[in-house]
């Protein structure tokens, strides 16, 4: 069934179809309509879940950890300041190896105050042990939520589904909604391998000495590597069931491209049009969309960028004192390649500033015209 949905409604539909059993959340713009939608679904008895209206994002994730620990399928959603407040619990959720799914609406962090799109909130959580999946459109948002449960419940690593503030969260698009029965066939009920069970009592999250701690970390990293394979398998299976697949990355016109533009989120959609027009003008430009940020799909990225002379990365984020975060990942990924393309790292679109087709054209033209970038970061779309 096709319906016009905002990104946040798409999240809620994904959660409904995945039959989450405990939801816990705290309002924050621009995430709020996700939990409003879920609250309505619960109030009308359409979604049979316990809905916790907690007093903070920290408690949202803490309570979800408790619910997941007894074997329930769980969901929470947040954004920006809320994700920052959750930070400690993100580590605990991953360390507890719980298959929690969370939606994060990418929004800028204060100070100064800003409620618009920016990736720094989720990217600054990159070392917490969560899988991170960035979405391009509302269809992908819905599909990714369903896939996220399947991936999480196989590798026991929590998954963050990330969507752009307003450009997705509050923008309506036609979305194909799978039939509930079809999703039930695709996504089986969750049966926890380990849980708090009075008939089989165990202690969780004990005091771990230096003798053992490192191995706990090794196991998470191992599971992350497994997650790459699992995510691919889940995506293939999803494509077979519903006719749509995404992959950890998507290369578009990369094979003969001299310049490849690397994007995430909604900038990808805008770039598709720009690239088509530049191709018509004879510019050999391709597009690499990155969906999976953690675990980082190194091999796939290397493969996609092989043969390109230059790579232009659009970073809607910044790691102060360093540069764009995707730019850095790309540079690190390419460092052991025999022939390395020159990487241009463009920081732009911060705090919701538009990344327009003409700005993307400028970025590509700059990359074509210059041997190498002037400096580690190229600030694009600055006020004149």
């Amino acid at each position: 069934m096709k319906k016009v949905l905002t990104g946040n409604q798409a999240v809620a539909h994904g959660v409904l179809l995945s039959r989450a059993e405990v939801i816990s959340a705290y309002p924050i713009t621009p995430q709020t309509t996700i939990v409003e939608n879920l609250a309505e679904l619960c109030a009308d008895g359409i979604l049979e879940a316990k809905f916790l209206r907690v007093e903070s994002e920290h408690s949202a994730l803490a309570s979800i950890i408790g619910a997941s620990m007894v074997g329930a399928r769980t969901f929470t959603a947040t954004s920006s300041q809320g994700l920052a407040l959750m930070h400690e619990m993100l580590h605990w959720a991953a360390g507890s190896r719980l298959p929690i799914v969370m939606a994060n609406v990418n929004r800028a962090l204060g100070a100064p105050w800003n409620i618009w799109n920016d990736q720094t909130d989720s990217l600054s959580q990159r070392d917490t042990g969560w899988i991170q999946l960035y979405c391009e459109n509302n269809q992908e948002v819905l599909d990714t939520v369903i896939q996220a449960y399947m991936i999480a419940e196989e590798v026991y690593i929590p998954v963050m589904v990330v969507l752009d503030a307003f450009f997705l969260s509050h923008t309506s698009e036609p979305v194909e909604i799978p039939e509930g029965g079809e999703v039930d066939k695709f996504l089986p009920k969750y049966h926890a391998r380990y849980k708090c069970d009075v008939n089989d009592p165990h202690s969780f999250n004990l005091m771990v000495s230096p003798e053992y701690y490192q191995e706990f970390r090794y196991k998470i990293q191992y599971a992350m590597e497994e997650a790459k394979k699992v995510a691919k398998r889940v995506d293939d299976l999803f494509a077979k069931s519903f006719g749509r697949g995404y992959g950890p990355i998507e290369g578009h016109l990369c094979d003969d491209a001299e310049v490849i533009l690397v994007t995430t989120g909604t900038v990808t959609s805008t770039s598709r049009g720009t690239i088509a027009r530049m191709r018509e003008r004879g510019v050999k430009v391709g597009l690499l969309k990155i969906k999976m940020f953690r675990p980082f799909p190194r091999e796939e990225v290397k493969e996609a960028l092989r043969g390109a002379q230059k790579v232009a990365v659009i970073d809607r984020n910044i790691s102060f004192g360093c540069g764009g975060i995707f730019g850095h990942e790309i540079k690190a990924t390419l460092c052991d390649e025999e022939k390395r393309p020159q990487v241009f790292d463009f920081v732009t679109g911060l705090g919701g500033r538009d990344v327009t087709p003409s700005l993307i054209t400028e970025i590509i033209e700059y990359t074509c015209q210059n041997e190498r970038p002037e400096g580690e970061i190229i600030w694009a779309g600055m006020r004149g």
Partner: protein
Amino acid sequence: MDEYLDRLNIYASRLVSQKEYFVPGHRACQGCAEALALRLVAKTLGRNNIVACATGCMEIVSSPLPLTSWKVPWIHVAFENAAAVASGIESGLKALMRKGRLPRQKINVMAMAGDGGTSDIGLQALSGALERGHNMVYVCFDNEAYMNTGIQRSSSTPFGASTTTSPAGKVVPGQVTWKKNMPEITAAHNIPYVATACSSYPFDLMEKVKKAADIEGPAYVHILSICPTGWRIPPQLAIHAGRMAIETGMFPLYEVERGKYRLNIDLPELRPVEEYLRFQGRFRHLTPELIEKIQQRVREEYEKLKRKVEMTNED
């Protein structure tokens, strides 16, 4: 004292279950009355009990991998959120039972934290969980300072106590603030059951924990947990210290059941607070003037409590 106990089951200790769910081998200090209180709580809540434990002494001493003192499912998730985690556990169980994914049965959900994890860093999560009305028992093991990190003051440290961050100095006489009244704060949430207890009164403690578990909705039990290490007393005086805390009125034993206050041990006359303070190293530096100040405060608070008992029991 026993003549004042209105319960005679003190003579029926043999009726108490022999089964333990917080078992020996843990690493608590000698004479730790918190470990004793926890043992009694765990015993009372029995096998069908899931524990969300905050960071703190009891977490550290009971869970050095690969060992555990717990014979019931137990999870530790950080310091400030035992109440939030327990609320999730309770909700998860409810959701699964409602869907028929878990057989319907009575499972106690217990959150536990120290005084720091309750009255300071965990207060927000606790208030949220109480307000939401989860069917759980929250137990605060109050040893009146951050003992796990080495005796730092908390908002639950009594006036005058010397700790490593409120040391008795030449100018400042130790802790200069009054103990935060957690039982009153929780009672103000209008939850069905609030009680204070102490392991020096084991039967009273167990009865209260049982009541807390049986009542539908959130229950809060605040247990004075004597800490010989932090209070600077010989370990063999731990039980005595608890008795003195109650007999001097420093820590009255009472309960608030559906808004009705009840003093469990109502003394016709309180012992002078000096009898409680004088053998504790943490109060050694107190001058007669400061002791008098404490005495006055205790008298006032006790009177206030008695008035609440009268007010809420008028028929």
